[in-house]
């Protein structure tokens, strides 16, 4: 109802015009016309009713004609005002002139000249400033002044100069106020226009940004859909919020078993062992990056998995992502390589052992006396085949370590076995180079400890062998000691050439020896230290290197004291 009323009044009042000033003025004129028209109409009806009831006309014939003429005039102006083809100023101007003419008849000329109804002239003067343009009030002040002069002449009365001055003063005031108003309006309109412009620009920017965003997002989507690696994106609650077809293919799970589930739920599969499931759950987690890919068997596949936190621009973790790669083929190749290396190494050992044996027997005169040169030659054969054997052994160990096949045999053994064995194996080599091999075991070190004595000896011999290799004079010292209640360790110190700081960080890499002449003069394929490090780590220990070029190096191994195994406890009973 209310809306209807508003719509109706809008229909009545609004006048369409292209120019906003024109529209505003036409609307104002419309309001005035409707107002005066309605008033006129009501007055006319009232007077007519009184005349009919009183059976006597309250107005004479001229007055009736005037009133009806006014009403018709108002209708005419209202009609003209609504026609866009007629200029607004012309309609308004004519209306105001019409008012001035009308005023001649509202009072007798005498009274008018005398000043009784002069105030009515202020109406067109003020209206002119509003309906035409601000300065138009002066024109109508002038016209009003002319009119009262004419009326004074007609009535033979004295011209009312004060009234004329009053008209101009009213014109001045309405000119000033109308001008201010128009100025304010113009400013508001300018501001609005600027605002509109800004809205247009901002809208364009936004739609551009939206387009770019959707473009990037579809690029990302295409990458995610296209890559062969399986991707899972987790939110901060650990739920999968995004994945891709490759992951579904790798895990052989339907989408609804992955999306919106946490990792533990996704891994509820019989395709994976409990042990490996735990490994994944430990390694793929919130706010941590996997340092190295973990490898697990998933059904017939081998998967390599890495994970990393997803961070926002401020560096806060807002989830994490796990990427799974099908590693089946690589794992097979690796397996074949390791098996091949192991087989070859094994097959090489037997003939090498024969060469070693025969050259030793020759050298030692087992087959009859040999002269010095022959003995030397046999010795060379012996030492070279030894070297070859060591290389083969290293390769075999490396292959076994990589294949994860290395097993440790933890048993109680005498700590002194380590040094005894070391001396029996290495003394001759050290002596041959003119070096002294010394060893000591601290008094606080237990006499017997639990460990894989074979692997520990391998570590020790490897380190001492290395020390002897790179030391030309002085000593190689082995020191076994207790670190604390839970750890023991040993140092292998030499007085060799030392290792430069830059080289220290690569010294445990497989197949790497320090650059330069050293490599060529010392032979080997650089597996020794890599194996030592791996073995130590597999036994739960750590290896450290301290070295000063020209002064020597110290390799330190720290290992945990192993608790007695079940069978040993039983054996003690």
């Amino acid at each position, binding site marked *: 109802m209310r809306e209807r009323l508003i719509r109706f009044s809008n229909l009545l009042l609004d006048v369409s015009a292209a120019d906003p000033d024109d529209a505003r003025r036409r609307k104002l004129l419309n309001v005035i016309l409707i107002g005066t028209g309605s008033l006129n109409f009501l007055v006319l009806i009232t007077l007519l009713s009184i005349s009919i009831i009183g059976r006597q006309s309250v107005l004479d014939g001229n007055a009736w004609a005037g009133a009806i003429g006014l009403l018709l005039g108002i209708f005419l102006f209202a009609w003209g005002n609504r026609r866009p083809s007629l200029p607004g100023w012309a309609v308004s101007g004519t209306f105001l002139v019409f008012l001035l003419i009308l005023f001649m008849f509202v009072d007798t000329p005498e009274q008018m000249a005398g000043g009784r109804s002069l105030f009515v002239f202020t109406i067109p003067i003020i209206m002119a400033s509003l309906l035409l343009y601000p300065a138009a009030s002066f024109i109508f002040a002038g016209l009003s002044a002319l009119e009262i002069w004419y009326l004074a002449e007609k009535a033979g009365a004295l011209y009312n100069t004060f009234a004329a001055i009053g008209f101009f003063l009213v014109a001045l005031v309405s000119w000033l106020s109308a001008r201010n108003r128009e100025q304010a309006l113009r400013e508001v309109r300018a501001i609005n226009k600027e605002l509109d412009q800004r809205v247009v620009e901002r809208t364009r920017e936004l739609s551009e940004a939206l387009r770019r965003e959707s473009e990037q997002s579809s690029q990302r989507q295409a990458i995610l859909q296209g890559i062969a690696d399986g991707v899972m994106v987790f939110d901060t609650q650990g739920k999968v919020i995004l994945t891709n077809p490759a992951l579904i293919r790798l895990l052989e799970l339907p989408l609804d078993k992955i999306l919106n589930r946490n990792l533990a739920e996704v891994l509820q599969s019989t395709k994976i062992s409990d042990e490996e499931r735990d490994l994944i759950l430990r390694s793929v987690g919130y706010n941590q990056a996997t340092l190295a890919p973990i490898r697990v068997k998933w059904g017939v596949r081998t998967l390599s998995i890495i994970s990393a936190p997803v961070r926002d621009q401020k560096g806060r973790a807002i989830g994490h992502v796990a990427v799974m790669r099908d590693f089946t083929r690589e794992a097979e190749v690796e397996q074949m390589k390791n098996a091949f290396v192991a087989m070859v190494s094994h097959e090489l050992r037997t003939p090498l052992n024969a060469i070693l044996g025969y050259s*030793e027997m020759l050298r030692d005169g087992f087959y009859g006396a040999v002269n010095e040169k022959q003995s030397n030659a046999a010795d060379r054969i012996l030492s070279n085949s030894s070297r070859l054997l060591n290389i083969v052994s290293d390769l075999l160990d490396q292959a076994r370590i990589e294949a994860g096949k290395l097993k440790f*045999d933890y048993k109680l053994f005498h700590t002194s076995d380590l040094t005894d064995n070391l001396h029996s194996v290495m003394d001759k080599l050290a002596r041959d180079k003119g070096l002294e091999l010394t060893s000591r075991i601290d008094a606080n070190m237990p006499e017997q400890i639990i460990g894989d004595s074979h692997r520990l000896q391998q570590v020790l011999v490897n380190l001492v062998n290395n020390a002897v290799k790179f030391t030309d004079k002085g000593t190689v010292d082995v020191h076994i000691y207790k670190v604390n209640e839970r750890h023991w360790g040993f140092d292998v110190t030499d007085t060799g050439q030392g290792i430069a700081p830059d080289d220290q960080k690569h010294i445990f890499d497989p197949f790497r020896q320090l650059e330069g002449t050293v490599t060529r003069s010392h032979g080997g394929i650089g597996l020794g230290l890599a194996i030592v490090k791996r073995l130590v780590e597999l036994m739960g220990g750590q290896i450290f290197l301290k070295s000063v070029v020209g002064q020597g190096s110290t390799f330190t191994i720290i290992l945990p004291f192993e608790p007695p195994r079940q069978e040993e406890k039983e054996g003690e009973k």
Partner: protein
Amino acid sequence: MTPEKPFGLIIEDDPDLSNIFSEAVHAAGFETEFVLNGRAALERLHGVTPNLVILDLHLPEVSGKDILEYIRSEPRFEKTIVVIATADAIMGESLRDDADFVLIKPITFAQLRDMSARLKPVA
């Protein structure tokens, strides 16, 4: 009557290594013999009770592990010392409890000779 020399049986499929091992054990003062495959070794063991057996593990026909089991199951071999000589460290280690000694190849002539000498039964 001079006391009989102790008897050492070398079970090794590589002829060169059998030869070297025989020589080494012989040099330690044993009477030696070698067989080149597992089946022949079992047959030979039916006839003799060696003081020392040098046993390779990867053998044709019958494996060294089976031979070791056979030796350990027969009371007749109670005093027989078994030294495993293998290039297979893993298997060697796994049999450490059943054998008296485990040597991982390469094994030098002197090493085996000196060891055999120590293992010689006191006359």
